[in-house]
Each structure stands twice: as C-alpha cells, then as structure tokens.
C-alpha cells in the first residue's frame, strides 16, 4: 500500500525541501543506522556510512520512482554504501580472512544454556567478527541475500560466500560461548 504522506514528503524532497528530507530521515533513520551499524561493527564507521547513505539518497532522490517503498529504497542504498566501503577497506585488509579453526564442537558442556546467548552477547560477538565474515553472515541470515547476490556485492565467488558463512557462524558461536563463560566466571568471582 502506498503511504500517501510519505509520497508527499518524497515529492517535496525532490523539490529540495529540507524539512521533508528531515521527516523522511526521522521515519527511517533507525532502520538505516541499524543495518550499517551491523555491517560496520563499529559506531564511528556506522555514523559515517549512515551520513553517506542519506546524503547520497537525497542527492539522487529524483531517481526514486516509487516502485518500492521509500524505506526499501533507502535501505538498499544503505546496504550498498556499507558494502562499497567494506570492499574498499578490504583492499587493505584482505576480505578473505583466515579462520583460526577454534570451535566448540565436541564439547557439549560449553553450549550456551537456552537464553544465555542473549542479544547483548550476540551483538558484541557480531562486532568482533572479521568484516568479511560479519558482512556475509548479516546479509545472508538477516537480510536474506542469496550467495549469488552476496558474491556480486562483495566481489567474491559464490563458493567463497558459502565458505565465509559457515566460518562466520562457527566463529560467532565460539565468541558467544566465550562471552557466556565470561559472565559465568564473573558471577562466580563475586560470590
């Protein structure tokens, strides 16, 4: 369903209306910031990416034809902006980062208890992932990208994307377990 109010705001923004732009920003700022923050793994970089995404979007808002919702459009721009930057960064730090092989497989005592892998732990663990792992994991498991789409966006082979995903999941799992153990140890030391 077309959001009439939003369509009006978009039209005003196309005419250069700064207030309309600000209202569009306020409607979608959390969504945009969240996706770039997840992909960036860092507050400063995320703010920079969000700024770039919004500035780029408003500078080319006349290209928005309304085929999709504005929120979908700006979200796509945000993802592309973040991935472009990650690719640039990856030129300095090879995107194909090695996985150290650490795993908890075969050690059932270290499974996080149900509910222990809470959001904060997952969030922190996600931030600790190497950029390439985090990008593939987030794009596939949360954004719903296929490996072909990920390969295309990140400039890597489909097989590499699959491999990165499995390694990212294993690394995330290991990091969450580490965090889980820290919490347990901390609790015990206070007793």
């Amino acid at each position, binding site marked *: 369903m077309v959001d009439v109010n939003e369509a009006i705001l978009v039209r005003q923004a196309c005419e*250069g209306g*700064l207030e309309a*732009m*600000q209202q569009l*920003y*306020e409607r979608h*700022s*959390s*969504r*945009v*910031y*969240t996706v770039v*923050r*997840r992909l960036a793994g860092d*507050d400063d970089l995320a*703010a920079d990416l*969000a*700024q770039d995404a*919004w*500035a780029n979007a*408003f*500078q080319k808002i006349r290209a928005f034809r309304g085929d999709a919702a504005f929120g979908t459009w700006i979200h796509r721009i945000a993802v592309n902006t973040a991935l472009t930057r990650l690719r640039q960064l990856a030129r300095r730090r090879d995107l194909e980062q090695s996985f150290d092989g650490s*795993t*908890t*497989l*075969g050690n*059932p005592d270290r*499974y*996080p208890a*149900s509910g222990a*892998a*809470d*959001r904060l732990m*997952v*969030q922190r663990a*996600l931030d600790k992932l190497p950029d390439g792992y985090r990008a593939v*994991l*987030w794009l596939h*498991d*949360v954004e719903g990208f296929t490996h072909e789409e990920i390969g295309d966006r990140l400039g890597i082979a489909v097989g590499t994307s*699959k*491999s990165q*995903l*499995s*390694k990212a*999941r*294993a690394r*995330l*799992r290991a990091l*969450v377990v580490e965090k889980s153990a820290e919490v347990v140890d901390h609790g015990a030391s206070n007793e």
Partner: protein
Amino acid sequence: MVHLTNEALSELLDGAQVVGAEKHLSDCPVCRGELEVMRQLRSELRELPQLDPPPELWTAIAARLPGGAPARRFKLGWPKLVALQAAAMAAVFVIGLGLGRFIQPDEGATESVPVSGLVAQTPTGPQLPPASLTDALAEVQRLGVQYDVALRNLERMAAEQGAETPSLAAERLASLNALVEASRTALAVNPADEALNAYLFSALQERDAVMRQINAQGTSSQNRWR
C-alpha cells in the same frame, strides 16, 4: 565418532541435503546440539533490536545537502562542491555580518561589516568566474574564516533577540542579492551543475518572497525569518 564439519552444519541449517547427515544426527547428540545452537543464534541475530543513530547525525547530513546548513568541514578537491560551498558560505557570511552589526552596532567593529558596505563592494552585473580552481579554493577558505565570524553573530542574535525586526528584511534582501550573484558566479564555472542551479533557483524564489514581503508590509510590520 567423527562429527559433522562446520560446513555441513551450515548447509543443514540452510535446509540443504548433506549425504549421511540425517543418520549421523540421529545418533549424535553433540552434532544435534550444535545444530540447535546455530539455529538459536540465527534467531538471536534476526531479533537484535533496532538502533538509534547519534543525535547529531541529521545535522551532518543536512550540511551536505543543497539548501541545508552550510558545511563547516571543507571537502576540497571537488570543484562543483567547492563552488556550491562558496555560494552557500557567502550567503551566510553576508547575512551573519549584517545581523551582527544590527544587533551590536558598537562592538565587534573589526568583526562586523555593514551589509550595505559589503554589497557595495560587490561588482554589479555578472561576475567573472574564478581564474582557476586554486583561486576558487582560496576564496572558499577566506569565506570560511569570515563565515565563522558571521555564525557567531547569528548565534548572538538568536540568544538576544527572538524575532526579526522590519529593517532586517532589507538586510536580508541585500544578502540574497549577494547570494544570487555568488551562485551565478559559481555557475559560470559549471553551468550544468544541478545542485547549483537548484540553489540559484531557491535564492531567486526567496528573494522574490522577501521583496513581496517588503512591498506588502512596508517597514512597520513584523517580518518573517526563516
């Protein structure tokens, strides 16, 4: 017992068929548990809360938009942006100086210059485009220093005076004239620049609005300050 690899577990998580995996899972609580943990983590990822951007983010974005607050951070090396910044800063500079003088005519004499004086120094008619990019950059830097002075004046005005007074409309008109000229000068460098054209168009519209306002209200009514 040989456990399933991370790759196999990952494929199973995505619903792919892995030869022998089903039989292994039925016999191996370790791999079953591992798969369940991975599934749980994926759910946790999807349920992570939305995040709020830093409060100052919009200000930074607006500063990069045509018609937004002038950027105080110079991004040199991009001619069309430089030209746009020159036009924008010239406008605020002129407005700010004029308002600063209006509010505090007796102090800050070295900082505040009468708008009329400034406009008088501006050549009438079309200005020549900058001779080179270096000249344009030097002009932007010069305006940048003066812009900071103007901004302080505007802040002082905001603190000491809530509304615009009638005589400010004339000052504003003079400022807008300067802005139109600055925009045209910048357009001489890059006539096809959409942002600059939009900027000039906005300035002309605003100038027309101020002129109508002056004509309609004379000097006694309260003027609008955007």
